[in-house]
């Protein structure tokens, strides 16, 4: 609907963390949003289309990470400075919507004054105006607009109040030429010299932009080596004290805007004791606090297991029925097999995880939106530091219980390189939702359904131990890495504990929607491709081996007088053995025999190196019950399986436990390897992690097998 031939204008949403920026973003864009990628800096940023009233014009809105200032301390915050100091960046905004919390306005204008000095057209959205009014804060928006010289709109992301007006004001801002004004902050003499020299050498027009580039010369991604060298010379000549200058500038800016805020707002003289204080007296209490945390964690796990069974069963039976229907109605041909056993079973493996991912992300988002996560960071910072991490790492580790991919991405808020790296390295040890089906099959197979003291089920106890094993492995390797890695970089906690808020439903379901679709599209692609490759490897074999397998199966079926289904399943099993997959499984058998595995498990292991969740599907095919999709049938088959040479049973308790340990510790997820490489900026750490986890898994599985056999 936009004007033909016109490039979409960029608008950036900028603001402090906890300013309610994301709520405003969701209000403005709704479902017209996606996660984009910033070139150069490998970070996802949410983008959405903003439709102006009348419907004839649109603009692109990007939600930049929350930051307090253009002097960043974490990689998340660096994005903001990197984009806003580089007019050549594809995301460089034509205009900025600055979101500030009206209840803490005197703390939220620092960044705004920095944006003004960059010469960018800015509009101030006073968020949470309804809450400000409730606690007796009166904001004179007109006066604020006059003193700052920019448009000011009072809005509420929560109720949606004045969002329409905000849209109109944004359009006006884009249509009116921006008048350049006198800079807010006047540079000190040394700053001026450096900024001017930078302007001259790098051909920059704005002096504040030049100053920021000089400050951040060591890490700004768009600078060339030559430019960096020039900037080093300039700053050395002037004996530039970057840190001192930053603090002085910040304090100067406060001195300049504090009178403006005082002029425009009226607030009650004392901060009354708020509900947040009363809640925190309990939630962060010395004894109750940690106890409450573990209760919340238990509730989350309960929710993932219990609430998800019904939708998961529905999805599973739906795919299974579709599979059967297609097989009976389509001609017998390899393309039919590709559709059913390759594509459809792959899709089933993707969709089956949706309920658990949705529930987990829903709960984690609730904890984050409410403001609880910041309290957890505060309470456990000391514990996490002992293991080489940061209080913030706990958010990643908890999210790792759903999926390591988004969990690793959430470690961007950790400023210290070493702590962030350790968090990235150990998060995949936390048992994710993809290990769940593997645990379910193996525990059901090997652990007797007994109860201890008549209450505790031995099977759920084993389940719990698998999670505990993951947590222990994560902390132990964190501790080891802390001892090995050296860094002189400073580490900070300094985190704001936001006011408790009731989560906004729109934020909740948009986050769940975003995570689920990211999984279906991102991880799903890989699972589907692997599923098809696996299918092909199992469907085709070298030379005429496959035909011979069929003949052999037919002869045996006649001799044993098998019925039609059993004969077909037998043929499938022989064909698999003769296929490329069987060949590969047999090739690695000597290496995995010490762990108690045969070549059939070998095939499943190879397949699982792409993604663990394919284990169950692969085992079904290998044990020739590809025709039935249920766990019980698979377990029955696995129970009777024997080693080809010795004839002893394969699935003893020892083998099952060894497999469990292997799956708990091994890095069997291509998506995680890829995301680690992307987040650390090098394949080195991704490969290190892969090797480390694989070796640990092999040794652990070997030890367990020998202990129990």
């Amino acid at each position, binding site marked *: 609907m936009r004007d033909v031939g016109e490039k979409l204008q960029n608008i950036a949403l900028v603001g402090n963390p906890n300013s309610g920026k994301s709520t405003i973003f969701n209000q403005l864009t709704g479902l017209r949003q996606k996660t984009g990628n910033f070139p150069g800096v490998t970070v996802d940023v949410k983008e959405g289309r903003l439709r102006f009233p009348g419907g004839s014009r649109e603009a692109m809105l990007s939600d930049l990470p929350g930051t307090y200032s253009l002097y960043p301390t974490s990689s998340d915050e660096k994005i903001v400075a990197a984009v806003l100091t580089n007019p050549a960046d594809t995301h460089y905004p034509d205009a900025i919507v600055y979101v500030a919390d009206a209840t803490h306005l005197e703390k939220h204008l620092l960044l705004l004054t920095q944006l003004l000095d960059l010469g960018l057209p800015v509009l101030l959205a006073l968020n949470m105006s309804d809450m400000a009014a409730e606690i007796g804060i009166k904001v004179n928006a007109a006066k604020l607009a006059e003193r700052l010289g920019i448009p000011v709109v009072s809005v509420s992301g929560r109720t949606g109040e004045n969002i329409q007006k905000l849209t109109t004001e944004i359009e006006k801002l884009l249509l009116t030429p921006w008048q350049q004004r006198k800079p807010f902050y006047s540079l000190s003499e040394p700053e001026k010299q450096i900024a001017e020299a930078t302007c001259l050498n790098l051909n920059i027009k704005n002096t504040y932009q030049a100053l920021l580039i000089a400050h951040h010369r060591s890490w700004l991604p768009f600078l060339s080596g030559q430019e960096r060298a020039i900037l080093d010379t300039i700053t050395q000549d002037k004996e530039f004290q970057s*840190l001192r200058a930053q603090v002085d500038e910040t304090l100067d800016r406060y001195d300049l805007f504090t009178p403006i805020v005082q002029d425009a707002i009226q607030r009650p003289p004392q901060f009354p004791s708020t509900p947040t204080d009363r809640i925190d007296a309990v939630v962060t209490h010395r004894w109750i606090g940690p106890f409450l945390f573990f209760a919340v964690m238990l509730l989350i796990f309960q929710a993932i297991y219990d609430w998800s069974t019904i939708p998961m069963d529905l999805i599973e039976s739906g795919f299974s029925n579709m599979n059967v229907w297609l097989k009976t109605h389509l001609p017998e041909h390899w393309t039919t097999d590709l559709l059913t056993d390759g594509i459809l079973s792959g899709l089933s493996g993707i969709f089956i995880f949706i309920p658990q991912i949705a529930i987990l992300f829903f709960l984690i988002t609730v904890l984050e939106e409410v403001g609880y996560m910041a309290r957890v960071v505060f*309470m456990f910072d000391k514990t996490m530091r002992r293991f080489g991490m940061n209080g913030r790492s706990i958010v990643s580790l908890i999210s790792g219980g759903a999926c390591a991919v988004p969990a690793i991405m959430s470690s961007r808020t950790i400023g210290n390189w070493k702590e962030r790296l350790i968090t990235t390295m150990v998060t995949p040890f936390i048992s994710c939702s993809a290990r769940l089906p593997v645990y379910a099959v193996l525990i059901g197979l090997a652990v007797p359904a007994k109860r201890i003291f008549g209450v505790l089920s031995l099977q759920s106890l084993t389940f719990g131990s698998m999670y505990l094993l993951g947590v222990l492995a994560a902390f132990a390797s964190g501790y080891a890495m802390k001892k090995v890695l050296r860094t002189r970089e400073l580490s900070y906690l*300094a985190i*704001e504990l936001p006011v408790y808020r009731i989560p906004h439903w729109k934020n909740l379901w948009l986050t769940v929607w975003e995570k689920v679709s990211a999984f279906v599209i991102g991880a799903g692609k890989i699972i589907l491709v692997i599923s098809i490759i696996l299918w092909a490897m199992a469907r085709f074999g070298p030379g005429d081996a496959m035909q011979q397998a069929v003949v052999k199966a037919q002869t045996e079926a006649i001799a044993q007088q098998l019925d039609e289904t059993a004969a077909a399943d037998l043929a499938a099993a022989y064909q698999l053995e003769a296929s490329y997959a069987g060949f590969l499984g047999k090739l690695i058998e000597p290496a995995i025999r010490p762990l108690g595995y045969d070549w059939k498990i070998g095939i499943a292991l190879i397949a699982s190196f792409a993604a663990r969740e394919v284990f169950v599907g692969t085992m079904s095919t290998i044990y020739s019950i590809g025709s039935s999709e249920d766990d019980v049938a698979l377990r029955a088959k696995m129970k009777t399986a024997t080693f080809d040479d010795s004839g002893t049973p394969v699935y003893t308790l020892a083998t099952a436990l060894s497999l469990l340990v292997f799956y708990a510790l091994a890095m069997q997820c291509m998506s995680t390897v890829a995301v680690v490489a992307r987040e650390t900026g090098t394949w080195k750490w991704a490969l290190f992690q892969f090797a480390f986890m694989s070796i640990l898994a092999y040794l652990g599985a070997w030890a367990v097998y020998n202990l129990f056999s």
Partner: protein
Amino acid sequence: MQRRYRTIPDLKVHESARALSFEDPALAGKLTAMGLLPGTLIEMVRAAPFGKAYYIKADGIRLALREEEAASILLEV
């Protein structure tokens, strides 16, 4: 001898004092950007359950600081 300065860990629960200056320049940049400035009235709320961190209120905002971060902020006596 009487010390000339106190720092945040010296505060008792619900005791307040004004911030004077910061000893760690890098942390000073971060804290000032968050709104903790020289002159800001700081109130001790509580220590973390396992220690080594403090929950403070500074002019209406709530912050969590590590022990060494808190100890780098000099307060008025």
